[in-house]
């Protein structure tokens, strides 16, 4: 990455392999490379969108960054500190600074605890406030996320999905964190409620000076919230670029395929065929060479044998593809005309950008 100063979260060559065992002695016969050599960074106040089909390792990545799962290798730095070596007080401080909002608002709230105690829990555990003061903070948070302070003693099962997600957001906010990992925060919600939650996240970002790692399988959702966007395929980051560049000059065939699949049919123009065919190969048996070559419309011979390395085409725009040459940053082959068609200003529809 370009500069190390003023970086909130830096992920370097992060790997998470799940061993596949067999037999009574649990012999390891192979491994699922859920996250493989992932590197990126997030600056303070920035939102990084992470897009990929389900099963590409997005959730695993977020769990490893939060130290909810052990990494197999690589490093994560938060404000310059090596996260995997934190212990005791420093680990507690990291916990306070980095929070998560999960996809499923039904399993992310303990059904046996009242809303108030769910939100108050972290405040108590970190000794931020107690008694009446704690309750005051919680009621303030409830109102800030658009719920009534009177819901303090209600239980999660009385709330709708959108309201539960607001509660989960209030819980994440309770420790006044610097970074919130949003793991598909709106995927489980109705479309009408998705926009409300996205807008809420945008307001909170401004008010609390937050950074987000915003994970989604849906480009349309990521589009409106992100300053920079990364795509992920079978555990690898395939392309990272600033949001403007990502839409105006996508270079990786996978990115282009995702974008074309997301295009709304425009009047007067034939709907473009979706160029992404077939299924993601089994993660147990990833294809040799470029992981994407089984589905890539412009794959060449070299792709089947040699792994492409990440290439930085311009400031902060990284692509992992053989066909992208550093000197000629034009999209590969016939995809060029498709990308021409994709040219459109970001933030056109639906929700305003954060």
């Amino acid at each position, binding site marked *: 990455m370009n500069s190390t100063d003023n970086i909130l979260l830096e992920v370097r060559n992060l790997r998470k392999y799940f061993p596949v065992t067999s037999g009574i002695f649990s012999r390891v016969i192979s491994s699922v490379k859920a996250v493989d050599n992932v590197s990126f960074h997030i600056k303070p106040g920035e939102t990084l969108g992470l897009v990929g089909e389900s099963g590409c390792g997005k959730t695993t990545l977020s769990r490893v960054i939060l130290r909810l799962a052990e990494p197999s290798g690589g490093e994560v730095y938060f404000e310059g500190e090596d996260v995997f070596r934190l212990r005791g007080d420093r680990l507690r401080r990291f916990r306070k600074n980095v929070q998560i909002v999960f996809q499923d608002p039904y399993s992310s709230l303990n059904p046996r605890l009242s809303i108030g105690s769910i939100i108050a829990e972290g405040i108590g555990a970190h000794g931020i406030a107690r008694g009446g003061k704690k309750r005051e903070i919680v009621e303030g948070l409830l109102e800030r996320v658009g719920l009534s302070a009177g819901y303090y003693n209600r239980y999660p099962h009385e709330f709708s999905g959108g309201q539960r997600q607001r509660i989960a957001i209030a819980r994440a906010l309770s420790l006044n964190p610097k970074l919130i990992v949003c793991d598909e925060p709106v995927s489980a919600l109705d479309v009408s409620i998705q926009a*409300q939650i996205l807008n809420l996240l945008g307001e909170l970002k401004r008010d609390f000076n937050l950074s987000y790692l915003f994970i989604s399988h849906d480009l349309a959702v990521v589009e409106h919230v992100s300053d920079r966007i990364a795509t992920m395929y079978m555990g690898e980051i395939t392309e990272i670029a600033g949001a403007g560049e990502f839409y105006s000059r996508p270079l990786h065939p996978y990115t282009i395929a995702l974008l074309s699949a997301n295009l709304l049919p425009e009047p007067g123009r034939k709907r473009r065929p979706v160029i992404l065919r077939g299924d993601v190969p089994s993660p147990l048996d990833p294809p040799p060479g470029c992981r994407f070559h089984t589905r890539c419309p412009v794959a060449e011979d070299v792709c089947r044998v040699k792994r492409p390395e990440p290439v930085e085409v311009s400031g902060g725009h990284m692509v992992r593809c053989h066909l992208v040459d550093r000197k000629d940053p034009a999209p590969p082959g016939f995809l060029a005309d498709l990308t021409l068609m994709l040219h459109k200003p970001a933030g056109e529809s639906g929700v305003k950008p954060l």
Partner: protein
Amino acid sequence: MRNNLSTGETSRDLPEEVSRFAEAWRVFKKNTPAVWGLVIFIAFFIVAVAGWFLTTGETPVLDPAKVRLSEKLLRPLSPVNTDMVEPGDRPVFGIYLLGTDDLGRDVFARMMQGAWVSLTVGFVAVGISVVIGIILGGVAGYYGRARIKFMHVLCFIAFFASMILLASGRKEPALDLFVTSLLLATVSAVYHYLAARGGAGPRPLDFLFFDTFSVDTLIMRFVDIMLCFPSFFLILTIVALLPPNIYNIMIVIGLTSWMGTTRFVRAEFLSLREQDFVSAAKALGLSDISIIFRHMMPNAIAPVLVSATIGIATAILTEAGLSFLGFGVPPPHATWGNILAGGERFIFDAPWLMYIPGFSILTVVLSFNLFGEGLRDAMNPKLRKR
């Protein structure tokens, strides 16, 4: 327009507050056999507690041990023969409600005492098994993936061997082994202290600290071993070795019936551990203790309580079986099992001596089972809202 969208959804008020208890009760009410089970459960509880008050003390109201040789094998509801029996020895109301046995003892008084014995045996035995089951199952479910180091296995074996030697009365080798185990424990404590402070890299004695099997393997294979023995024969064997008294019976039944609960709690913990709210609690920086006791245990306990209800019935049945075979609570104490055993010889002359305890056991065990199953249905969220 967009800004008020973010609060628009919540202006609608929540429906009426419905507690989980009211919800469960609504489902439970519809299950008639379960309601009957509950009624008999409560009635049995009252009878048993009353039995304890009425049959203990210096001059109990109902004396289950009073022998009246003139009043042998009387039918239920027979009046007392006032010529032969001293006023102080007469049953209350001057009538043998449930008849007398071969020694002229009041069967009603004996049944009341037996109810109390059954109740305590059932609750204490199940209490023991639930506590063991929750602890072992919780450890297996939460910490199960941790692997035990070779050194710790050595340490444990040395300690256990020394305890066995001590129990068999060989003090000298027991002491040697005990000191060895303490030594090993000190070495591993120092090793772990250094490991925690120093960075990565090899250390001396690393070869003694390789990983062996996991905690989960240890506990669950032990469960499998315990389940291999037919539990009734396991109990019979242990009871044959121990002095027969009511406390030993409770403990033995408890110690041989925790395996189901362990499996249950482990399975619950394994699935709860993957739930997002547990991950969220970890991300908030809560301690293991509060994650286990605030977030996991309350969600795992309801099904355990249901199986405990059925466990009480099984324990009562086991105690009755043991008493029937003569291995149970010894004679001066009446239990339903030994009343049944005592009546067996008079099955043609005094059939009530078998029918009364037999039907009581049947009713109580059946009602506990029905109640437990109704409870399970009521707690099952999938059956709600119907």
